[in-house]
């Protein structure tokens, strides 16, 4: 099942991402803390996604497999802790400013093949 809704991907700090990043970048914990996406619960419902389920996020610059968590968010945005997974989606266009679109990338959500909710 595939929906074509578009979301703005917001990347940002979380306290756990911060704690993990100073506890060893190569530890599993850092990877885990930067490889999930937060969605509004209504979007989770609409897409029939369960807490902890893995989905694919896609932008015009790349895609990433991430775990879903529900959060108090507007339906227009999805949130990811800043890190290597989110950076697969961001793309390198800086529009002449040096700054990539780290909080304004448009993404879509695809359910993982074979997931059967």
């Amino acid at each position, binding site marked *: 099942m595939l929906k074509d809704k578009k979301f*703005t991907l917001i990347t940002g700090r979380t*306290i756990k991402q*911060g704690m993990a990043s*100073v506890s*060893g970048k190569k530890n599993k914990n850092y990877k885990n803390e930067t490889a999930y996406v937060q969605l509004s619960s209504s979007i989770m419902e609409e897409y029939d996604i369960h807490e902890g389920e893995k989905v694919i996020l896609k932008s015009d*610059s790349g895609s990433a497999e991430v775990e879903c968590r529900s959060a108090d968010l507007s339906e227009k945005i999805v949130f990811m802790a800043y890190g*290597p997974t989110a*950076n697969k989606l961001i793309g390198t266009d800086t529009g002449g400013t*040096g700054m990539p679109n780290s909080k304004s990338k448009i993404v879509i959500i695809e359910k993982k093949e074979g997931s059967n909710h």
Partner: protein
Amino acid sequence: MSEVKKYENITCTFCGALCDNIEVEVESNQIKKIKNACAISRKKYMHALQDRTIPMLNGKECDYDEAISRAADILKNSKNPLIYGLSSTTAEAQKTAVKIAELSGANIDSTSSVCHGPGTMAKQLVGMVTATLGEIKNRSDLMIFWGANPVEAHPNHSKRYTMLSEGLFKKNRSDREVIVFDVRKTPTAKMADQFFEVEPGKDFELLMALRMLVNGKEPELNNNQIAGIDIEDLKVIAEKLKNAKYGSIFYGMGLTMTGAKYMNTWAAMSLIRDLNDFGRFVMMPMRGHGNVAGSEITMAWQTGYPFAVNFSRAYPRYNPGEYTAVDLLANREVDAAFIIASDPAANLPHQAAAYLDEIPTIVLDPHWNLTTDKAEVVIPSALKGITASGTVYRMDHVPLHLRSFLEDEWPDDAEALVKIGELIEND
């Protein structure tokens, strides 16, 4: 029996708030107790001595001096190298990195370009009204957090400098009104008196509308809303801004990374400037890395420019978008890279960081990270503020001196850079 030593007023280098009230107890070159540190800082200290890098050449362990001399060779022999990072090292190391950039005709850029660099670009257009953190603590009656979430990124900020601090004229939380503008209800928003949810990417429109209202003009409306906020609410906000005696805005990546990028900050800076016609109003970037402010400061006194500097003509030139790391890497314009105290493989867009696999890359860092995986040369170093001393600049440009309190087997960043510089210079 080994002796327990106690150190007070140690500065934590994790974030731009640079809390300088950390207390540590040390025994047998190990940290035994930590006081006053936030959750992130505590982890940082506890992990400091683990996962330490060793000198490596092409994936094999080597002598420290071998790594240093290979680094010098790479920089010397390249046509257009990039030196990048700098935000988590000392001013002494930053200065020396600029010298190496000059000697090797390199591009030098800090993490500022993907962080608060846009705010600096905006400052170059309009200027900026700001203050040190203590000034805000002592005087500010209205505090605004815009696209900034210090509760998670600068955990002790509110206690030391803002909402919850004790100031000279403003004593506690009830002396201050707090408003948060963000695209999501962050933990910081939950501490505020009011939270306004901004439509993503519409900060510019919102700030421009506020400028109009503050100056007694009516913005043009389509549906009585701007950026998802009702015009009547906006009018109330504008009045509050005008009536503040000493207002303050802390802004984060929510302003610098979205929509109009540096023009967002331009709009905010213009608004704050205008507000000084009514009362006093100041603004402050919530600088992320411990010494990212220092990277702009040291680069500026040596080159005249804050970041995105090119030395191919043996004098400094400046242009974000041209000499910035993401552009240089993504456009495949550099033929070598020297990463100092930073982890672009984790923090830059994937395709930009991936190019580091293809060119000779040197990493100078005390810990293994995702970029050390890509490095031809790894140079270990001592830990800033733990096993190495030096200078760091807080988000409000207040300098602090770091004292070391543990022993290390590796020289610090500044020393490594001095050695590389000498090898290039005396060639």
